Each structure stands twice: as structure tokens, then as C-alpha cells.
């Protein structure tokens, strides 16, 4: 959990102090933006710690999206949200994830417990796998954030 929180803190820092212009900046050919990263990771938090871990349905606003026809919805629509909205959305998702992990640990045992949702073909990842995956997912996106932030104002580091 400490590793994951460090990754979350890095994303928060990489997106701090930027206006909507900075959050919408792109590098070269990529359509990835810092604002898009916040919205995407808010979705990813909901997906793994709520939908998978607890078997919940998607939370708003994710439940109203037609993902089949618009698979990149969160990236595409991030430009319509204000920086405050994007930060709040991500922040709330993280808070919710922390509570959901605590709840799972209190109710269903340790890190070896399996997620409540299973793949159609059967099989479910353990909470340990989910945490490992989330660290890796955040770290990769923080790699994107490094180069985006560097392009916006030259800031680098961790």
C-alpha cells in the first residue's frame, strides 16, 4: 500500500499547479494529457478496487458511458472538465479505494483473498495481484506524466 500511495502522490505532484491549458497539453503525436491521466486513473481506481474487488457496478460517471462505442471516453472528455473537477474526481476515487481496501481486509481476510468479480472464463486475481498491477499501472502513467510535465514547464524529478 505504501508503494501505491507513493505513485498516487507522484501523479498528484506532476499535475499540481497547472491550469486547464497545462492539463490539456500533448506531447508530439500522443493524445495523452495530464488531465486525461487524472480522469483515466480515477476510472482505474473504481474499476479495480470497487468493480473487481467488491463486485460492485461502476460508479457515476462511469456507469453512464457506452464503453463499446466510446472506449476512450475518459481521455476524450477530460478536456471538458475544469482542473478542479478533474482533481476532485481523482481524489474522491482514491479516498474511496482506500476505504474499500480497508473494508475488504477487515471482512474477507488478507492479501491472498480473490476479487469478487471473476473473468468470464473463470478465475479471479488476488488482492495482492491487484495492488501489484496498480503500482505498475500508476508507474507507467507517471512515466507519461514525467514527459508531459517536462514539456509543459520543464519540471522534472520525483
Amino acid at each position: 500500500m505504501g508503494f501505491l500511495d507513493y505513485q498516487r502522490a507522484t501523479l498528484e505532484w506532476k499535475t499540481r499547479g497547472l491550469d486547464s491549458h497545462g492539463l490539456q497539453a500533448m506531447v508530439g503525436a500522443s493524445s495523452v494529457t495530464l488531465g486525461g491521466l487524472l480522469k483515466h486513473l480515477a476510472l482505474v481506481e473504481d474499476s479495480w478496487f470497487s468493480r473487481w474487488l467488491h463486485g460492485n457496478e461502476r460508479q457515476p460517471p462511469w456507469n453512464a458511458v457506452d464503453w463499446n462505442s466510446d472506449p476512450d471516453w475518459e481521455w476524450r472528455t477530460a478536456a471538458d472538465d475544469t482542473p478542479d473537477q478533474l482533481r476532485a474526481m481523482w481524489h474522491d476515487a482514491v479516498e474511496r479505494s482506500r476505504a474499500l481496501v480497508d473494508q475488504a481486509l477487515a471482512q474477507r481476510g488478507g492479501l491472498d483473498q480473490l476479487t469478487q468479480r471473476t473473468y468470464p472464463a473463470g478465475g479471479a486475481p488476488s488482492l495482492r495481484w491487484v495492488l501489484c498491477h496498480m503500482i505498475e499501472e500508476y508507474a507507467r502513467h507517471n512515466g507519461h506524466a514525467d514527459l508531459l510535465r517536462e514539456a509543459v514547464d520543464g519540471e522534472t524529478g520525483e
Partner: protein
Amino acid sequence: MSLGSSTMDPVVFTGAMKDQFEVFLDEHRAMLAESLDGLTDEQARQRLVASRTTLLGLIKHATFVERVWFDEAITCRSRAEIGIPDTPDESFVLNENDTIESVRRAHAETCASSRRATAQLQLDDLVHGNRRGPLPLRWVYLHVLRELAQHCGHADILREQLLAG
């Protein structure tokens, strides 16, 4: 290794934690090496961002990271003895004779020795050769996974720029 080759393989979901870490690491090692697929040496050496990072330099750095954590930290040998630079910054620097082929070969060989180095260790075993002090192998795995994944993110953007350019 008994587990599948992808972290999304159901066998990996519930596998032993150490095997799981190895699969996560291997997936990122492979993604980094594959980021050079289909590029010319000239493209791989191209500087695309303000910092020194090039795609080829990134793979050289990833090789350095393997040595720091799975050689220096475990064997307590010095960086000079291992034959790697003193600082991470220097590990990005390209020599005239570095090519995609030579850099990828060194990376693959180094990853193979990393696997051999961790094969006999348990997750709670301490390694003593890092400046941070004694660290359990599980911490090293998480740290290296985080680092490789972040560099995969760098590679994503650099490769995308090269292919679009």
C-alpha cells in the same frame, strides 16, 4: 519458472507471490526491449525531449537498473567491479558503437543473470549491497517493478513520437 508469461494469465493471479513478481518484471523487461522493434539505430538514438533521454539510452539505463538491484545489491560488488557507471545519469549516455542489437543483447543477458541471482532467494531475505541499507527482496521487487513500469511509460511516448515523426 512455472507461471505463465503474462501478468493477465489466470495462472499468475493466484500464483506464489515471488513467481508473480518475476512475471510482472519479465513483462516489463520485454516491453522495454520491444519498444525498439522496427526502429533504425538512428531513430533509437534521436533526442526527442529536453532531457537526455533517448529510446536506446533508456534501455541502457534499464540494464544499469538490473545490475544495481540484482547484482550490486545482492552480491555487494562495487559498480566498478560490475562494470557499470557510478551514477544513473551516466547510464543513459550512448557510445558511438552502441546499436539496437548490442544494447538489446546486453539487456537480455543482464535480465537472465538477474533471474539467476534471485532464484535462490526468498521474499524476506535481506540484501545488503544498496546505499539505503539492508532491504528485503520483496521491497526490491516492488521498487524495480515501479521503476521499469515508469520507464515503459517514457518509452511509450518516445516511440509514439518516433513513429509519428
